[in-house]
């Protein structure tokens, strides 16, 4: 019997250019608490069923050192589907399903979401592709004999659903289900040599999609109001009695509104003055 855990390794500290949104990958990869819980659960299940444990991930070769940490914790085999960039969930799930079927995995445990705002859809896709039973978003998992899980699922309104899931199955768990055990020193020393089986994924080099949002400036220290009485301080804070330019409301078509805003920004000095028009001939 084989218990597999699927994890997604995510860049923990990508550099993002605030102006262009260009992403510089860092060297630090990591996975979510839910993914780590999945690995721990796979280890526990493999222990109690005397099964083989495998961790499967889809990522670049930078992921290997992180995978070896799982080996140090006791995972028997490491499999990495060679992919760079950010392929979409259905593609990843397809590759994972093919690989898991090839391994002959009976029970597949996933984290219910990854660190990069994962939606938790991959486990469902994988279950679909494998034709396996699925139980997603579990908060508690136990076992009822080899291949059979007894699980509690979170529902809306604080309700819980109790499930008994037979193999073949794909489940996803929340991070609170288990905490990944700390690897022993001897296992950590050995883990450096553990091989990572690499599955080629030709053509799966997808550049990450970048969405930029308006820059949020950091909060800044403001001097406290000076007034002695509470009222004075409140007035100072709100700026109620300070003379100011009253706001102006205008209704204009978009192009003229934009022109007005630009003109005003120039007047306030936020934009450079208009460069003088070069003289045009004829």
């Amino acid at each position: 019997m084989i218990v597999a855990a699927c994890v997604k390794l995510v860049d923990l500290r990508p550099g993002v250019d605030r102006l262009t949104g260009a992403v510089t990958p860092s060297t630090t990869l990591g996975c979510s608490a839910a993914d780590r819980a999945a690995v721990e659960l796979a280890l526990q299940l493999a222990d109690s069923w005397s099964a083989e444990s495998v961790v499967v991930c889809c990522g670049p070769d930078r992921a290997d050192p992180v995978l070896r940490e799982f080996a140090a914790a006791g995972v028997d085999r490491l499999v990495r589907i060679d992919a760079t960039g950010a392929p979409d969930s259905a593609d990843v799930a397809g590759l994972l399903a093919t690989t898991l079927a090839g391994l002959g995995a009976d029970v597949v445990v996933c984290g219910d979401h990854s660190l990069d705002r994962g939606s938790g859809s991959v486990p469902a896709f994988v279950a679909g592709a494998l034709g396996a039973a699925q139980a997603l978003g579990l908060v508690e998992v136990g076992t009822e004999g080899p291949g059979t899980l007894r699980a509690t699922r979170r529902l809306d309104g604080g309700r819980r659903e109790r499930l008994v899931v037979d193999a073949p199955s794909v489940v996803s768990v929340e991070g609170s289900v288990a905490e990944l055990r700390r690897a022993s020193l001897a296992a950590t020393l050995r883990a450096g040599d553990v091989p990572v089986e690499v599955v080629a994924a030709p053509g799966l080099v997808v550049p990450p999609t970048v969405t930029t949002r308006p820059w949020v400036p950091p909060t800044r220290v403001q001097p406290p109001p000076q007034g002695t009485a509470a009222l004075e301080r409140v007035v100072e804070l709100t700026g109620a009695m300070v003379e100011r330019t009253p706001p102006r409301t205008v209704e204009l078509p978009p192009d003229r509104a934009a022109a007005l805003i630009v003109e005003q920004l120039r007047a306030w000095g936020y934009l450079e003055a208009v460069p003088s028009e070069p003289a045009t001939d004829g």
Partner: protein
Amino acid sequence: MTDSTYPEISFEARMATVEFRVDADRAHITVDDTVCRDCTTRGCITACPANLFVPTAAGGILFNYEQCFECGTCYLVCNEEGAISWTYPEGGHGVVFHRS
């Protein structure tokens, strides 16, 4: 934008630039604030670069370990025997510098 009188970022924003892999299970530094009640100097409050020592109204010291630089300033300046018990966090946890 390049005005030198532009206010400093807040301390929270400053600390938010630092990565801390917090060990939720164990505080690596503990402060016995019954000892701190008799302390007149309280050097830890001004010296801790992460501003983790906060005096309480009751005369004690409130300490948070999560955003600790693990620098050692606090136990070095502490002049009350046994007030601060100081260890390193579990391996892999705690502060992680990237551009230092």
